């Protein structure tokens, strides 16, 4: 390794990167933009479920429900309840008949009307149905003798993640992914303008060239991600694991940058390839932000292991034992991508 030559090329690349107004602006604005969004988003989760209730007679079981995190707001009439649900004041409305307690006492089934707004999620509808059944069981004395519930795994009760912290891994990976584009353009221009050829007739070797480009990619991606995570408190838990994860993420995006640099012919084609890569690599992030939107196949996307690890460590304090397997897979993907990218570039340089 010719460290002198590598240092000279790194210095040149940073100079060129920040002379390019587009990259300089996007790098600066990108991090400011994500920080601004982060701090503007809610920092806490409102866990109370508000349900409208019309109850001429209030069954005693409702007091118990309120203790379990449900908030009932009383409507004056069934018509007022329906109107409030339509207006979006309640997620659901329950109308109890006036003779509900008598019917329970006589062993008859009371008729309970339940109202939902058109956009109420299915999960909530199911939940309210279960609530009604539970009410019936409680009032008729047929409720289960529930033993102390046992939580298998970490008890997440009260640990709901605020929206901004849920978005944190997504922001971090977006900051890293953007640097793929800068690196790809630096490389593709070096190849297409044949400046790489001029470098390779000096004592600088192809491996030196890759080392310099890799260092630039790593510094840009890793450095910014660390800065972001540091500012938003993403490293308050297990900072070493987060650093290692972001470092591997930096290697991963550098490999992708190499590959796109070999595929791209100029800034526009590099941008085209970058958009494709961005879409693919960003998919796992949505699975974290919106659970249930991404199924198991997302695990074939290398960035899944980056986002999942950052999410679990920064939001739940997962330790080495919990995410060691993730990091191993991430390392494997990162090395494979660097190898593929390097081979593609070596072929192009010849």
């Amino acid at each position, binding site marked *: 390794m*010719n460290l*002198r*030559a590598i*240092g*000279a*090329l790194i210095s*040149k690349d940073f*100079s*060129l990167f920040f*002379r*390019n107004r587009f990259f300089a602006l996007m790098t600066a604005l990108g991090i400011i933009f994500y920080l601004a969004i982060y701090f503007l988003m809610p920092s806490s989760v409102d866990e109370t479920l508000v349900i409208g209730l019309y109850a001429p007679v209030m069954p005693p079981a409702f007091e118990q429900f309120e203790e379990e995190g449900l908030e009932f707001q009383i409507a004056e009439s069934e018509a007022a309840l329906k109107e409030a649900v339509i207006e979006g004041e309640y997620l659901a409305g329950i109308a109890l008949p006036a003779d509900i307690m008598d019917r329970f006492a006589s062993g008859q089934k009371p008729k309970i009307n339940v109202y939902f707004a058109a956009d109420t999620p299915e999960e909530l509808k199911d939940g309210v149905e279960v609530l009604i059944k539970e009410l019936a069981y409680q009032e008729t004395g047929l409720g289960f003798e529930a033993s102390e519930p046992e939580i298998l795994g970490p008890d997440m009760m009260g640990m709901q993640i605020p929206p901004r912290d849920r978005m944190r891994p997504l922001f971090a990976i977006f900051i890293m992914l953007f640097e793929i584009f800068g690196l790809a353009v630096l490389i593709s221009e070096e190849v297409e*303008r*044949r*400046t790489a*050829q*001029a*470098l*390779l*007739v*000096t*004592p*600088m*070797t192809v491996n030196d060239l890759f080392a310099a480009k890799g260092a630039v990619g790593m510094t840009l991606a890793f450095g910014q991600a660390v800065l972001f995570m540091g500012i938003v408190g993403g490293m308050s838990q297990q900072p070493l694991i987060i650093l290692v994860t972001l470092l591997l993420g930096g290697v991963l995006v550098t490999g992708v940058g190499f590959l796109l640099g070999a595929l791209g012919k100029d800034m526009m084609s590099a941008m085209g390839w970058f958009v494709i890569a961005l879409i693919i690599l960003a998919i796992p992030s949505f699975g974290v932000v919106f659970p249930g939107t991404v199924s198991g196949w997302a695990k074939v996307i290398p960035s899944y292991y980056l986002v999942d690890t950052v999410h679990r460590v920064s939001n739940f304090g997962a330790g080495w034992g919990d995410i060691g397997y993730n990091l191993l897979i991430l390392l494997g993907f990162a090395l494979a991508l660097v190898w593929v990218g390097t081979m593609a570039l070596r072929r192009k340089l*010849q």
Partner: protein
Amino acid sequence: MAHDAIVAEELTYWYGELVAVDHISFHVAEGEILGFLGPNGAGKTTTVKMLTGLLKPKAGKAMLLGMDVASNVEKVQGDIGVCFEDTNLYEQISAVGNLKLFARLFGIRPFDANALLKRVGLAGREKDRVETYSKGLKQRLMVARSMVNRPRVLFLDEPTTGLDPTSAEAIRNIILEECERGATVFLTTHDMVEADKLSDRVAFMNEGKIVALDTPHNLKQQYGKRALKAKIATRNGELEDREITLDTPETPQAIRELFAQEKVVTVHSEEASLEDIFIRLTGRGLYA
């Protein structure tokens, strides 16, 4: 006696089925200027790539300054300078920035970029971004860049193509100065006049092979046809061309008869150009 700076022994390279360079052998002495001529696709660039360590020969050997290029690439590259045909400068940075980068790659400290730029006629434009330069100025900078490490062997690929006469002459002068300093120059060019003016010897390359290699004078002697060309005035006042081939037994008699029987208006001798010889040897022109 001068040692050989460049030695090619049975140098060969192929791309798939295409043999680009086919077992060529030659040597270039220290301080010599070798003109390397040939049409596009003749194998010139591939040869230069093998000599400069950019490509590893598929067969044969390239030696530079007594070292096998393939096994001493970095050492060899520390002693050479290469000026490519296509402009490949960092256009967003200044001329000084370009030269300083390459000086750092070669490990040269201290390095006076301004002195080198002054030498190639770029004084006053040192700090301008290269993207603002004309083609001629960029080419001067390319030549300057190839001289950053005071190379012992200089590879110049079409250094004056597309330049105005002043820029071209400036670059030719720099080549001669480098040669006086003791550098060996490997000059690839299409320009036969330039090759004739600058080269101690020229090599003609065609379809991957060297078809002739000698001094321009010897090549002309060996392959060229010398002639005397005259314009004569006829009786009705019109001009006619006459040509007498020189170096034949009949030449003296033919010249005597020309001057005795015709009214000669102009007369001059003509010798074959390198291009004529190249066409004669290969059956194709340099731009074919």
